[in-house]
């Protein structure tokens, strides 16, 4: 009696297709890492802050939301019209057949209605496209503005922040976490709104036609909900098992490669391979389950939909034959079933994604809320043009944690041009002294002066400009060797760069590289040894010609002779400059104008080599132990 349910599968496929394609895209995007879904602490508050962060681009969101509503309205109108269209066509075909004639579609015999039908879908399509296009740039723009805020924040965070955290933690907030947010903004938020509207609208339309069939459908709908929930919960727990397996394997691999010399030297290849195999096996096991669950969720829920369809189809067919259902209703009903089923499949997943994204956004906001360094004084003191380099600590008090004072009462004076050596065991506070001097950390009491000016009254930039510093861990950035040497003085000429490199005894090495000074260095360039990296950072400090030098165990990876040469170059550079040297080589200590012996954060002895030997204290003990 009906050709009408020819439409039955159409809506289904249309919806499935787009959705499934999106899911595929998401899976592809997440291929590298499965994340656990977390729950945000304050979902509404975070959502509001995101809204605030979107200032200036909110119109996009409004346009997209309006388009989404338009899309829903026209998508819901189309089935009602198609019922009319098909009734019309089938009626005319039957009429022609009864007259024994053929039927041809022309504008007059139904073509006009087909075109109108096309127009309805086309309007829905336009709304859909507008929404998709607007959202595809909205999310990334929002992310960009948040990333810009992070970049600015990174320069204002105190060293305290960095010293307490792994770099990876901060990096992932700026990358992974924000990617999660944009992912959801693009595919999640509006889809969720559309899904809810679609579902509600379709069920209302269905109920208007037939309550019995609607209740069958609602039953299956609830079943799908339950199934989705079960699968989602299961996916979640297996995802975290998988995450644990990934973590285990990652650390095994990192460890094995870093320690491979030891593994080979002690003949532990097979033991190590067995450990690795166990970790890889666990990952294979968990990812088999995790991947199947993630990918099978769609087909499983769609299967329920198909059963519902078959049952409703048979019931409706019976009603149709019995004349209790009109042809048009039969057709329209099926279309709404499909319109409603499709968003259902995705809703639960989308909610999980949304929660994960809000939790990620919360982490980003927590980073942006971190306490910043105190701003520079509004009216900073000014240093004279030629800084002499007299540095004094006056009763300085400091602790990394408020409750645990480390430095109780430190006083020292470095006269201009003096060489100050700092000695002491690891953790004795040598680096702390430098941290305070450079104002990487702020002191809790007392004061530090440079040429008599309290360093807190200076801008940090002005203060630090007076220092040249070579750190223990030789930091190079991705760029050419010349750029790395000229880091502190970007305007330096090539000749000046080469001169600094020569002074730091690294010129010869640079010439052995294929592109010389234009050789690109990458972050973990293994072609450059630790010693050579340090020589490069020494050249960098030399180029800047600062008033005060800080050498923080900088030469510990350079052999003695090279160090000796560097020290000679440094001595020339240090002439007339104050310098602080942290080193555990006696050669650097012995001729110092002032030796500071540190222990547990405090200076326990200070004086020249002779004075300290005569005092026969900690320094004398340390010094004499080498001859035992």
């Amino acid at each position, binding site marked *: 009696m009906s050709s009408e349910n020819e439409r039955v599968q159409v809506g289904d496929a249309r919806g499935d297709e787009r959705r499934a394609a999106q899911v595929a895209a998401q899976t592809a995007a997440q291929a590298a890492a499965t994340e656990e879904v977390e729950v945000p602490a304050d979902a509404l508050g975070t959502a509001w802050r995101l809204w605030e962060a979107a200032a200036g681009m909110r119109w996009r969101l409004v346009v997209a939301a309006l388009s989404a509503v338009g899309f829903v309205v026209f998508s819901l109108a189309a089935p009602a019209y198609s019922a009319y269209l098909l009734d019309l066509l089938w009626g005319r075909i039957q009429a022609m057949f009864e007259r024994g004639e053929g039927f041809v579609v022309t504008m007059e015999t139904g073509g006009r209605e087909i075109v109108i039908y096309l127009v309805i879908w086309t309007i829905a399509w336009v709304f859909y496209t507008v929404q998709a296009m607007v959202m595809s740039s909205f999310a990334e723009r929002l992310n960009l503005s948040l990333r810009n805020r992070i970049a600015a924040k990174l320069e204002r965070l105190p060293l305290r922040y960095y010293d307490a955290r792994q770099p990876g933690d901060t990096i992932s907030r700026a990358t992974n976490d924000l990617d999660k947010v944009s992912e959801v903004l693009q595919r999640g938020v509006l889809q969720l709104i559309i899904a809810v509207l679609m579902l509600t609208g379709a069920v209302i339309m269905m109920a208007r036609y037939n309550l019995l069939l609607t209740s069958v459908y609602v039953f299956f709908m609830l079943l799908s909900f339950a199934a989705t929930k079960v699968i989602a919960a299961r996916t979640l727990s297996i995802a975290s098992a998988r995450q644990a397996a990934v973590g285990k394997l990652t650390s095994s*691999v990192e460890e094995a490669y870093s320690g491979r010399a030891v593994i080979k*030297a002690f003949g532990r290849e097979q033991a190590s391979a067995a450990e690795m195999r166990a970790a890889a096996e666990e990952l294979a096991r968990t990812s088999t389950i995790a991947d199947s669950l993630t990918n099978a969720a769609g087909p499983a829920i769609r299967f329920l939909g198909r059963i519902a369809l078959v049952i409703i189809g048979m019931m409706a067919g019976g009603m149709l034959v019995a004349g209790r259902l009109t042809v048009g209703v039969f057709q329209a009903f099926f279309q709404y079933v499909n319109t409603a089923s499709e968003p259902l499949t995705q809703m639960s997943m989308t909610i999980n994604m949304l929660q994960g994204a809000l939790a990620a956004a919360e982490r980003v906001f927590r980073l942006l809320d971190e306490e910043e360094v105190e701003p520079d004084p509004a009216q900073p003191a000014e240093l004279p043009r030629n800084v002499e380099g007299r540095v004094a600590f006056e009763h300085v008090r400091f602790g990394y944690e408020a409750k645990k004072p480390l430095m109780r009462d430190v006083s020292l004076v470095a006269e201009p041009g003096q060489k100050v050596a700092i000695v002491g065991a690891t953790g004795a506070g040598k680096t702390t002294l430098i941290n305070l001097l450079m104002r990487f950390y702020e002191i809790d009491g007392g004061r530090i002066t440079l040429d008599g000016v309290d360093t807190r009254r200076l801008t940090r930039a002005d203060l630090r400009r007076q220092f040249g510093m070579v750190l223990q861990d030789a930091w190079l950035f991705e760029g050419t060797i010349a750029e790395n040497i000229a880091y502190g003085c970007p305007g330096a000429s090539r000749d000046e760069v080469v001169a600094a490199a020569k002074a730091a005894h690294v010129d010869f090495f640079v010439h052995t590289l294929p592109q010389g000074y234009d050789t690109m260095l990458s972050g973990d360039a293994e072609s450059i040894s630790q010693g050579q990296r340090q020589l490069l950072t020494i050249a960098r400090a030399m180029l800047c010609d600062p008033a005060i030098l800080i050498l923080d165990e900088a030469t510990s990876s350079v052999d003695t002779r090279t160090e000796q040469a560097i020290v000679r170059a440094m001595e020339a550079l240090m002439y007339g400059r104050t310098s602080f040297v942290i080193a555990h080589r006696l050669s650097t200590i012995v001729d110092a104008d002032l030796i500071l012996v540190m222990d547990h954060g405090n200076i326990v002895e200070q004086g020249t080599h002779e004075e300290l030997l005569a005092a026969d204290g900690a320094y004398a003990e340390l010094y004499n132990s*080498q001859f035992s």
Partner: protein
Amino acid sequence: MAQEAAATNRQEAGVEQEDYTLRDSLRLLARLIKPYRRLALATAVALIFDMTGMLYVPTELSAMINAALSPNGSTDLLVHGVRMLVASICGSGGAITAIYLASKLAANVGRDMRMAVYEASLAYSGSDFERFGTGSMITRTLSDANVVQQTLAMGIIMILPVPVMSVIAVGLAFSIDAVMGWLLLTVTLAVVAVSVVTVKVSAPIFTRLQAFIDRMNVRLRETITGVRVVRAFGREEVAKHELDRTFSDYADNAIRVNLMFSTADSLTFFLMNGVEVLVIWLGADRVGTHAMQIGSITALIEYAMLIMFFYMMAQFAMLSVPRALACLGRASQVVDLAPEVGDPATPAVLGEGGAGERASAHAEVARFDHVSLRFHDADEDTLHDLDFSLRRGETCAIIGNTGSGKSTIAKMLLRFHDVTAGRLLFGGVDVRELTQADLRARISYVPQKAWLFSGTIAENLRHGDAYATDEHLWHAVDTAQGAFVHELPEGLATRVSQGGTNFSGGQRQRLAIARALVRRADLYIFDDSFSALDFKTDAALRHALKDELKDAAVLIIAQRVSTIAHADQIVVLNEGEVVGVGTHEQLMEECPTYRAIADSQARKEESHV
């Protein structure tokens, strides 16, 4: 492909770029899949069930409509319903089975790829490994394998069904009506064209996006790890600017990718509308001429939709294929590299050793017989014409500048590198005639970087000797001046975090020394192992070692003259050549290089003391 490889390799200084072909990638893939042929076959069967079920449901539905429209219609309803139900169950069952099997297949392949890379690396010599570098090797073992695994699973689920689906669906359309058959064939070809264009256009943009993501990570890491330097040099503004630029680059490209996806999405939506209307219009015409029945329109629309659906999915899956091939290629470089150092087919066997008292004192343990070493990409010898012996009961020290090749000598003894000229004898046998395991079992080694493994202290120490008793371990700890272990609440059972980072540099070094002492060996090598120790501990340790190792040969590589002044034999290296051999006193007399080193360290002390 080439672009992809270039992008991924950009960061790897020193590694030959794109040194692999598509063939290498596919060969490795074939090798990895080979053990799972039956699993692959089962997956294909399940997929065919899936496809057949999926196409059978609309076919049956249209049959039901057609039957219902015939005068004696209603009785067949139940039969059609049951058939559809069975088809649904078969289809969905096939789909879920296929997904499970594909996930399993991919997970197994991923696991085997990780293990293939790791096991290949175990056979590598030092320079083999340095060709790739630790960072790159980690990437190849972990994320490359992961990309391959994910892409393989997606490929099986999303790409494999496409040709099957197209052929069956078009065939079914022709069986209904030739005109509709041609229509569907045209639609299929149009979709193929759209897919090919999309993949072609988007693949390079995707690759670029990946490069921008890498850049963001690199810049962020730099900014964070270098925060002290950035601030010391007052370059905060520049650092921020650099970051912002990489962020903008990424955002621009990401927006382009998103727009492209939205365009493809929207295009497909439009295409579907068009095809639906076309099928209704042409279908109604064909029904009007009795060429087909009205119910078949349902089936035709569904076939068309399914074809588009699968192409769209395949399109997304295709995007990650170039990347996966590049990953396979990178892994094949590792797997296919023939290790520089290998074991002989018929290895020589070393005589009894180990227990010192059995061998006579001052017997030669190892001998460098005019040994030279040149790395494969170098123009000059790294070590040239070394000629000296290591004897039981004697301490030999090696001193020289950074880059003079000191550590390489230790690595040659362990056969991390092989000689390129001359011979290196161990126990009178050329080391190349021994198995690596046999050789290394006779040597105990303290590396320059005191690396410890996660686990307990005892587990780490037992790397030296798996069956060592606790007393033995404590003895080694005490000899290594590891008194701090006694103060730990859990003693030898104390946890060690990866790399030993929960211990100070000096503590790590002493634990690494203890680990080496646990092993009874003919030769002990200390590669710059005292550098993180203060002078006092250094002296005490040397004293303790003297008694402990009096029956073995000892090789100390050091920078401090004070550490080695008492050695029986000191070898002075300068730019890979031996410039002096003798005792401290002899060398002070005869060797200017040695004198210069000693002077540079002792000058100040002597003038003051």
